[in-house]
């Protein structure tokens, strides 16, 4: 059974204080690892897809990296508007559907001005 564990559950940062969120996973064969951002009362918003170990992707202050066992979401010099819940999900090879993602429980990020 595919499993995704995110840590920490909650993270409080001061504006400009860089940090990382962790996503550990076990999957029979990784097709893709996804990062989403979710604001309160909204649906998850797609950020990145990573496909193979060593791959990195960046978007503004965010950079996602992938190893064979985990992924990190690095946040550089965060701003208050980066406050949100960040979700990690994995998609395995096999099955009949592209989008059967298994999600972690999320990390709640709060950035104080």
């Amino acid at each position, binding site marked *: 059974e595919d499993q995704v564990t995110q840590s920490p559950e909650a993270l409080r940062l001061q504006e400009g204080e860089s940090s990382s969120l962790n996503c550990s996973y076990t999957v029979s064969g990784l097709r893709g690892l996804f990062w989403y951002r979710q604001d309160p009362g909204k*649906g998850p918003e797609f950020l990145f897809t990573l496909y193979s170990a060593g791959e990195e992707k960046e978007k503004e202050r965010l950079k996602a990296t992938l190893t064979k066992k985990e992924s990190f979401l690095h946040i550089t010099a965060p701003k208050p508007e980066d406050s949100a819940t960040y979700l990690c999900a994995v998609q395995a090879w096999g099955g009949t559907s*592209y989008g059967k993602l298994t999600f972690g429980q999320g990390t709640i990020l709060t950035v104080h001005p």
Partner: protein
Amino acid sequence: NAGVTQTPKFRILKIGQSMTLQCAQDMNHNYMYWYRQDPGMGLKLIYYSVGAGITDKGEVPNGYNVSRSTTEDFPLRLELAAPSQTSVYFCASSDTGELFFGEGSRLTVL
């Protein structure tokens, strides 16, 4: 584009009542999904569809039913609502892998 549209946004049900959550997408995606999200539990897949007329169970299908008569619409039916179905429900669609989510439907069963 509207993307994925869910209705209603909020609903309160009494135990034993039934209702349908509506989901429509205008991106011509073949794949559609229903997830539920409970505090601290992440998103759990209820049902999914790979195209019109084809549906299958996800991780937590008990107490729900779906149908997919068109590419655009994927309604979720709750029969005999129970307090355990109190949750936020998200519909999503995809074409190339990443999912596009609706804004969610918050359901409370009392």
